[in-house]
C-alpha cells in the first residue's frame, strides 16, 4: 500500500495506538479522504486497534489509553463518513448498547461504541440508566446485536428484566445479547441465556473476529472484511 499512498495507513494506525487524535485527523485531511482505499483504511483501523488491545492485555495500556485510542478511531471514521458513504460491506450490522436502569457507568460502553463505529458498524448508543422498553425498542427497530452493561449486583438484576421484556415482545431470538460490566459473570449470563464478556476489549474482539469474520447476521462477508477480522476466513 505504501507504493501508492505512502505510509498513510501505517501512520494512521500509529496515531490510533498513540491516541493522538489531532495528528490522525490532520493526517487524514492532508492526505484527502477521497483518495483513501476504503478497505485499506478499515484495515489500518483494525491494525491500530489490534495493537492497542495487545498492549492492554499485556498491562502496558490501561483504560485512559483505550479510551483515547477509541476516540481516534471515532474521529477518523467521522471524518471519513463526512466525505464518503459508510462502507457498504459493514452497514448490514446494526447494534445497540446501553447501561441498565439504575446504573450510569459508561467507560466500557464508550470504548465499544467508538471502536465498533470505527469498524463501520451502525451503533445505537442508548446511553446510561436505560429502561427495558428502550432496549426492546432498539431490537424492534432492527438492532441485531444488543449489548447490555451492568456494574453493580443490584443493577445486574435489571439485565434479566430486559431479557424478560424482550421475550414478552417476541424478540428474544432476534438479536444476539452480549452482557458485560463489573457485575456480570459467566454463571449469571449462562442462567439468563446471554453471552458474557469480561471487558470492552473482549466485545470488540468478538465482533471483529466472530460476527464480521463469519459474516454479520448471516450476510456473506466480502474479502475486505477478512483483513478487518485479521483471521483467515473459514474454508477459504
Amino acid at each position, binding site marked *: 500500500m505504501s507504493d501508492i499512498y505512502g505510509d498513510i495507513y501505517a501512520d494512521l494506525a500509529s496515531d490510533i495506538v498513540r*491516541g493522538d487524535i489531532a495528528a490522525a485527523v490532520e493526517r487524514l485531511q492532508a492526505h484527502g479522504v477521497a483518495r483513501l482505499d476504503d478497505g485499506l483504511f478499515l484495515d489500518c483501523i483494525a491494525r491500530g486497534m489490534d495493537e492497542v488491545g495487545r498492549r492492554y492485555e499485556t498491562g502496558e495500556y*490501561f*483504560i485512559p*489509553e483505550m479510551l483515547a485510542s477509541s*476516540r481516534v478511531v471515532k474521529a477518523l471514521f467521522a471524518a471519513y463518513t463526512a466525505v464518503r458513504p459508510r462502507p457498504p460491506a459493514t452497514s448490514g450490522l446494526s447494534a445497540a448498547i446501553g447501561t441498565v436502569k439504575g446504573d450510569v457507568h459508561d467507560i466500557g460502553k464508550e470504548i465499544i461504541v467508538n471502536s465498533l463505529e470505527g469498524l463501520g458498524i451502525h451503533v445505537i448508543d442508548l446511553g*446510561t*440508566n436505560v429502561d427495558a422498553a428502550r432496549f426492546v425498542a432498539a431490537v424492534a427497530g432492527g438492532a441485531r446485536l444488543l449489548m447490555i452493561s451492568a456494574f453493580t449486583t443490584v443493577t445486574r438484576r435489571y439485565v434479566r428484566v430486559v431479557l424478560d421484556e424482550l421475550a414478552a415482545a417476541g424478540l428474544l431470538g432476534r438479536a444476539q445479547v452480549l452482557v458485560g460490566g463489573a457485575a456480570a459473570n459467566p454463571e449469571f449470563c449462562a442462567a439468563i441465556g446471554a453471552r458474557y464478556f469480561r471487558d470492552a476489549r473482549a466485545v470488540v474482539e468478538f465482533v471483529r473476529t466472530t460476527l464480521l469474520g463469519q459474516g454479520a447476521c448471516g450476510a456473506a462477508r466480502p474479502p475486505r472484511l477478512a483483513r478487518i477480522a485479521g483471521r483467515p476466513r473459514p474454508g477459504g
Partner: protein
Amino acid sequence: MNGRERVIRYLEGRPVDRVPVAPVIDGYFAPRVSGRPSHECWRSPELMAQALCDCATTFGHDIVVVSDALGADNTMLGCPVALDESSHVPLYTGHCVDAPADLDRLAPPPFAGSPGEATLLAVKARLGADRFILGVVTTPFETAFIVRGHRFLADLVQDRGFAQETLAACLPLAEARARALVAAGVDGILFKDSVASSSMISPRHYAEFAFPWEKRVIEAVRDEAWTALHICRNAGPIIELMAQTGAHVLEVDAPCDVARALQATPAGVFFKGNVDAVAELQDGAPEDLARRVEELCALARRTRRLIISTGDSTPFDTPLDRLHLFMSTAWRSGALEGPGEGCAS
C-alpha cells in the same frame, strides 16, 4: 471500651481489647435495615441518619461511615443526578465540564445548613460518644472524573494540561469539604477514589495525576482528624505512593494483597480491608467468608496495623446474616492480648 475508643487507641498504637471491626456500611446498604426505600433515605437527612444508626445498632461495627443525604437537590458537584423509586444511590446523569471555561463555575457547595451536615450531626448526636464517626470526601481525581466524565480519563493521554487544570479546580472542593467535616466534629475523614486504581489507570498516571492532589488535600487536614484513603479495586502497584500521601489509614479493596502491602509500607501506616464485598460477603459461602475474616484477624493480631473491613461498600442485597457472621467471626478472632509485632508504639 467502646468502638470510638477502640479505633483511636488502635491507631495510636495503644493496647485495645480486640481489633477494630468496621465493614463499610453506608447509604447504599443502610436502608435495607431501616426498611425505608433508598430514595426516601437519600432525600431525608433524618431517615438517612436513622438508617445508618439502625445499622450500627444492629451490627455493632466500630466505625460509622456517614453518607450525605441529598435532600431536595437534584445536583451534586454541579452535575445533574437521578434519584427515583428504583434508585439505591443517587446517579450522576450528566457532567458539567466540557471546556476550560467551565472550570470557573466549580465552587465548593456550602456544607453549613446542607442535608449532608444535617445527616452528619444527627448521626454524631446519637452515636458520636461511642462510635468512630467517619465523614467522606471525594478526592480531586474522582471529582474531576465526575464533573467531566470518561473524557477526563482520555484527557490523561490527549490533553494532559487540561487534565491538570481540572484537577486544580477540583482541589478546593475537596479541601473545603474536608475542613467543613473537621469543623463539624468528625473523628476521621475518608478520602474516596473509585477510579485511580491500577485496575483503571497506570501507576505512572496515578503518580502524575492522582497522587499529588490526594497528598495536598490529605495534608490540609491530617493534623486535625484521622485520615483514610480508599481506592477501589487493585491498589497493589501504587500502595507505596498511597502511603506517601500521609493518610493514616489506607482502605484497600479485595484485589490488594494486604500482607504484602503491610510489608511494603512504614509501621505507622494502617490498613482497612479487605473482604470482597460482593464475591465473599454477599455471594460467597458462609464458611469461606468466616475463613477469610479469620485470616485477616490473624494478620491484624500479628501486625496491629489492620482494621477488619470490607474492601468496598456493602452491597444492598447482602443477606443480613452474612454481616452478622462477619462481625461475630471478627469479634471472636480479633481478641488481643499483648503487643503485636507491628505496634506503632
